[in-house]
């Protein structure tokens, strides 16, 4: 037999045989591949059938118009016969505003609504940097949302016109110079604070001026004493500003040019307003703190490293509720007498720390996953530590960690319901308890939890989808 062989022409690719593609193949492989799998498929179908048949009547008999649980039950009994079950959504219809706003004064509902709409306008340039089409979609939706909801919330005409003008300007700017929308993101935090808590417009402006002081001192001092000492000097100057100059300047400006809106106390906040305020602030501050802690833990500097490790291990080692109790009770003892430190602010700080400690570990995992060659290449090109971190290391480490980072964010957002334990009115326990204490709705059980759970699901699912979009967008390795 000869071993010599020469191919004259190359074979073209062919489609797979008919039995090996499409629905038939999928069902055969996934549902009916063996007797055990056939049995499990049948069992699964039966369980689904049982769940649906048990709960479907309850959903179908839903009542939307009633003034009490008793009335709901009568309507269900009249419609579907004695003994039938039915959901009583009439409670939501009557009490939805408490689930959303807590005890925020109804005449001021437009303020949280406006703050919520603008939140997305502020997030858009961060989430979709430079993508004109996505910015247009988000900012356009914000404009429509504000137009409808502000009108429904009976917003004062001046505020309505100004808000819509702002939204339209943002849409226009996003299409002309997408990068410039970031400026709105910068002014959003004080604006949001002012809208929600009200009071003199000068307090948030003067407080933000502290950051300007920090930056100015840093810029002026850095050529003289180097970057790190200049940053330290800037922080000291800003703290001095906040401690000694902030209040006098703000009250002086307020007396010279009085302008403000009704101040709302923190104890009026509740429901999703509270959950979103704590969640969003916690998320936006925990990420940078977490990054710094992760870098600190890897640092060669002993003190920085020890402090980072100590912070991470301590915060991660105690339950969040312990930290919340610390926020509500113990923190007051450590502060100078007479300082009244807002309870929501205290809770936000500790929730942020808690999430930051988890994020630090998540990001450390991402940093550890990078090959050493990336650090070496950055070094060999002469990039200094901060530039190497910012341009080379962190973009890759954060990308690797996106799923875990978003998990932590979702966890943080859901954990905001734990503030119920320190007497704040979270949507799940706080508001639901108030509703169920009402004589009209006594005994209602599933409906409030389903309602609150559904809203949480929408937010968390949104975050999850965004993280998948981001992973896809940043996927450049083509593996």
């Amino acid at each position, binding site marked *: 037999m000869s071993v010599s062989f020469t191919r004259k022409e190359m074979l073209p690719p062919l489609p797979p045989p008919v039995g090996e593609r499409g629905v038939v193949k999928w069902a055969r492989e996934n549902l009916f591949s063996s007797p055990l799998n056939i049995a499990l498929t049948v069992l699964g179908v039966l369980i689904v059938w049982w769940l649906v048949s048990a709960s479907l009547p309850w959903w179908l008999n839903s009542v939307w118009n009633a003034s009490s649980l008793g009335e709901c039950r009568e309507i269900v009994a009249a419609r579907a016969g004695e003994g039938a079950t039915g959901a009583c959504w009439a409670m939501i219809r009557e009490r939805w505003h408490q689930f959303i706003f807590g005890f925020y004064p109804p005449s001021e509902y437009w303020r949280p609504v406006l703050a919520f709409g603008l939140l997305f306008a502020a997030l858009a340039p961060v989430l979709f940097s430079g993508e004109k089409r996505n910015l247009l979609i988000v900012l356009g939706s914000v404009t429509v949302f504000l137009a409808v909801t502000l009108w429904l919330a009976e917003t004062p005409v001046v505020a309505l016109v100004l808000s819509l003008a702002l939204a339209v300007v943002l849409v226009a700017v996003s299409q002309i110079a997408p990068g410039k929308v970031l400026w709105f993101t910068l002014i959003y935090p004080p604006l949001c604070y002012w809208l929600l808590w009200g009071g003199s417009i000068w307090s948030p402006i003067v407080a933000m001026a502290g950051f300007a002081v920090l930056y100015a001192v840093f810029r002026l001092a850095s050529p003289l004493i180097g970057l790190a000492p200049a940053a330290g000097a800037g922080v000291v100057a800003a703290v001095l500003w906040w401690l000694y100059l902030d209040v006098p300047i703000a009250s002086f400006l307020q007396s010279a040019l009085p302008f403000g809106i009704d101040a709302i106390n923190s104890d009026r906040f509740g429901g999703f307003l509270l959950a979103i305020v704590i969640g969003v602030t916690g998320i936006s501050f925990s990420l940078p703190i977490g990054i710094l802690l992760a870098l600190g833990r890897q640092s060669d500097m002993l003190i920085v490293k020890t402090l980072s490790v100590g912070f991470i291990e301590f915060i991660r080692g105690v339950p969040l509720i312990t930290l919340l109790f610390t926020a509500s009770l113990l923190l007051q003892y450590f502060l100078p007498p007479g300082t009244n430190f807002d309870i929501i602010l205290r809770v936000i700080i500790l929730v942020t720390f808690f999430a930051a400690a988890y994020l630090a570990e998540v990001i450390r995992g991402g940093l550890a996953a990078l*090959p050493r*060659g*990336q650090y*070496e*290449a950055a*070094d*060999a*090109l*002469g*990039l*200094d530590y901060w*530039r190497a971190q910012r*341009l*080379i290391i962190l*973009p*890759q480490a954060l*990308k690797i960690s996106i799923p875990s980072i978003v998990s932590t964010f979702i966890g943080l957002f859901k954990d905001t319901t734990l503030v119920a334990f320190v007497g704040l009115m979270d949507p799940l326990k706080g508001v639901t308890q108030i509703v169920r204490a009402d004589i009209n709705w006594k005994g209602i059980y599933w409906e409030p939890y389903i309602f609150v759970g559904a809203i949480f699901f929408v937010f968390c699912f949104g975050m999850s989808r965004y993280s998948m979009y981001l992973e896809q967008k*940043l996927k*450049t*390795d*083509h*593996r």
Partner: protein
Amino acid sequence: MAEASKMQVSDEVAIQIRGMNKWYGQFHVLRDINMTVNRGERIVICGPSGSGKSTLIRCINRLEEHQQGQIIVDGTELTNDLKNIDKVRSEVGMVFQHFNLFPHLTILENCTLAPIWVRKVPKKEAEETAMHFLRKVKIPEQAHKYPGQLSGGQQQRVAIARSLCMRPRIMLFDEPTSALDPEMIKEVLDTMIELAEEGMTMLCVTHEMGFAQAVANRVIFMDQGQIVEQNEPKEFFNNPQSERTKLFLSQILGH
């Protein structure tokens, strides 16, 4: 291929290493290294694995720290002073065995990043320079792709272009062809030969003896952290002096 003798070597000293020692913990990796590299010299360093050759050139841009002796690069001594280290690193280009391109940046961004952030070159100018060097390594058409889309040989040529964009006066090559398929080794070596012909000072750790014979004006053989033998390539290959060198050469040239 060009002849080594045609290429200019000046008397100016580019790298001076005196009595340099390095330990990893208890392990003495580099032992009493003394060498001088003149501007325009092309040096090939070879030796068995673990002989310290990679560690030696990684000390020259302080990716590794030495514990004793002196390393002076372009008149700047390498000490713990970060300013000096960054200065040396921006003057010395390095090409790695595993390319170490930045996978999240395009080829063009890989090449412009350091000039923009370290040299403060305007973006436009940096891009022009980058395209110039990408044309030189013959892959300008890949400028807007990501490293993951390129073959190994192309990636290594990008890595060379990336180093050249910083306009280095010295180039270090750490086994640049060891991770490549045989078909791609040639394209990378050709790029390096072209660079040598332009008079770049080069230190190259490699086992490509053909390359050594073509462009090197000195071959250094290392074993157990020491320089065992150095000579002109012709003498080195035809008439090795030490037994260790003879054994090494018979093993790598014998197959």
